[in-house]
């Protein structure tokens, strides 16, 4: 059965739809479809297939109008907006405010610093012992900076924050990173693969949620603040053979603060404790113009979002994107707007044919 699951994939289903299956493959497909749990996957592939092999083009807006007319009498002004002509696109870039002003002042210096945030170097201290050949990102810029991990989880790294992992840490159902400093994590949901953050003093384990970590530095305390979902916190095994102890479970809007020796007691928090926009924003939009949505995302994640201002000026977005990682938010926005996106050198470029 496990083998069967491996054999049947998108390619095989496409081959089936194109009548290119051997009889053995046909048998495995039949076998696979006997499990009703696989039906959803089949229809997903079928939809992709139809999407790529459209028999003809339908005027979907016209048809939607017809159907709505049948369901109720539509208002004439609605028809006007639907018919409104698309204008030639003029691109506009929204940058996060901090970077934009800094750029003006620091110019090239900024670019060099940004580059240095990307560089890979050997970690020191406790981290060195635990990781082999890691990728380490250190925020040496003066402002927050979003790191996207191999599983598309995103971390907004505050200045001087450090995150490292080796490619091996994201293979075989594992997701492990090593972390120092302050950062806001939005972990992409994957029930089969827990996401672990190790720090010098503690570890956290989650499936898909959002939370802030602050590791102790000098006399400061460690801090874990949960925005959504649940987070399990373990005290770090200090290598002296003692078992890592029972985890403390944190739920949404709970905070855990502790220094190295203290016990772990979670407390409830209010929204005042959430300092950064990405931590405090709910990212729920009701008919918001997309330019505003992109502006909010751009300033919360400190990224550049490049989109067609003219093309998208009529686009309004209704969406709930509370704790999705950055790229997941972008992906869902594009789904809702029938737009496409690509990431080019950290800039998110969105293309659309208008709304």
């Amino acid at each position, binding site marked *: 059965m496990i083998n069967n699951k491996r054999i049947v994939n998108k390619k095989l289903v496409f081959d089936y739809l194109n009548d290119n299956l051997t009889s053995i493959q046909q048998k495995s497909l039949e076998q696979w479809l006997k499990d009703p749990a696989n039906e959803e996957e089949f229809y997903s592939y079928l939809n992709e297939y139809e999407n790529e092999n459209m028999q003809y083009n339908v005027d979907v*807006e016209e048809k939607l109008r017809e159907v709505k007319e049948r369901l109720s009498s539509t208002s004439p002004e609605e028809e006007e907006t639907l018919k409104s002509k698309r204008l030639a696109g003029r691109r506009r870039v929204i940058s996060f405010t901090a970077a934009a002003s800094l750029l003006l002042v620091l110019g090239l210096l900024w670019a060099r610093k940004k580059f240095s945030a990307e560089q890979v170097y050997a970690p020191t201290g406790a981290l060195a012992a635990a990781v082999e050949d890691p990728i380490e990102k250190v925020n040496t810029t003066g402002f927050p900076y979003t790191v996207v991990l191999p599983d598309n989880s995103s971390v907004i790294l505050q200045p001087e924050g450090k995150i490292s992992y080796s490619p091996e840490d994201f293979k075989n159902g594992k997701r492990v990173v090593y972390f120092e400093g302050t950062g806001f994590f939005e972990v992409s949901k994957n029930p089969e693969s827990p996401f672990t953050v190790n720090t010098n003093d503690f570890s956290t384990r989650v499936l898909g949620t959002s939370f802030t970590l602050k590791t102790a530095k000098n006399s400061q305390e460690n801090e874990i603040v949960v925005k959504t979902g649940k987070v399990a916190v373990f005290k770090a095994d200090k290598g002296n053979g003692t078992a890592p102890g029972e985890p403390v479970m944190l739920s949404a809007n709970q905070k855990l603060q502790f220094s190295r020796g203290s016990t772990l007691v979670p407390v409830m928090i209010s929204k005042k404790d959430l300092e950064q926009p990405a931590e405090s924003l709910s990212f729920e939009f009701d008919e918001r113009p997309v330019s505003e949505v992109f502006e909010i995302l751009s300033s919360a994640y400190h990224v550049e979002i490049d989109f067609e201002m003219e093309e998208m000026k009529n686009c309004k977005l209704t969406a709930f994107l509370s704790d999705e990682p950055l790229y997941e938010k972008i992906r869902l926005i594009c789904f809702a707007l029938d737009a496409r996106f690509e990431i080019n050198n950290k800039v998110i470029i969105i293309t659309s044919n208008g709304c």
Partner: protein
Amino acid sequence: MYEKYSRKSGEENPSEKLRISSENEEDSGKGIVLDEESYLRRLFKMSPEKGFDLLFRKYYGQLCSHCVRFVHSKAFAEDIVSEIFVNFWQKKVYEHIDTSFKAYLYKSVRFRSYNFLKKEFLRETNEIRDIDFARKSPVDKPDDILFYHELANRLDKIIRSLPAQSRKAFQMSRLEGMKYSEIAREMNITISAVERLISRALDKIRTELRSDSTQNQ
């Protein structure tokens, strides 16, 4: 459920006007994989109108493309798919659906396309098979998934085996929805010749489809 807020980046303290998602505590953390389907579900919960618009825009074209493989007529395909969406809205299918929207829509297209063909081409077949199909079809048997693809293939093969002129007239009339007079002009033949070609094509499809389905029973 939500409140509206307005904010321009950098102009005011965001935390003053923005809500923290706290009520959803139980929803999140269960490890639900958020994809387009759950996005649509959330949208339908908040505003069925907006959910409907998005669902329509997302799938209407692809569903017509799928439907036309069975009914070989753009006009009929669009009618069938529109009918599915009308029914989806009027019966509030989105409130009690237990599959994904996508699976529901594709299954409906297949089921309705089949019913349509049955009415059109298997009209004169015996009652027993009809009842048999009626009993079988609403149940989601996994074999059905393959059955529909075979049906589409069979039809395709039959149409491709039609004599060239007959096929051309049939496809112009049926697939493109052209009038007989337009076809006559295009093919440089008389209107009654067009009628003959098309009725011959329909007869052929009926006989072939019937003999095929008898074999398969």
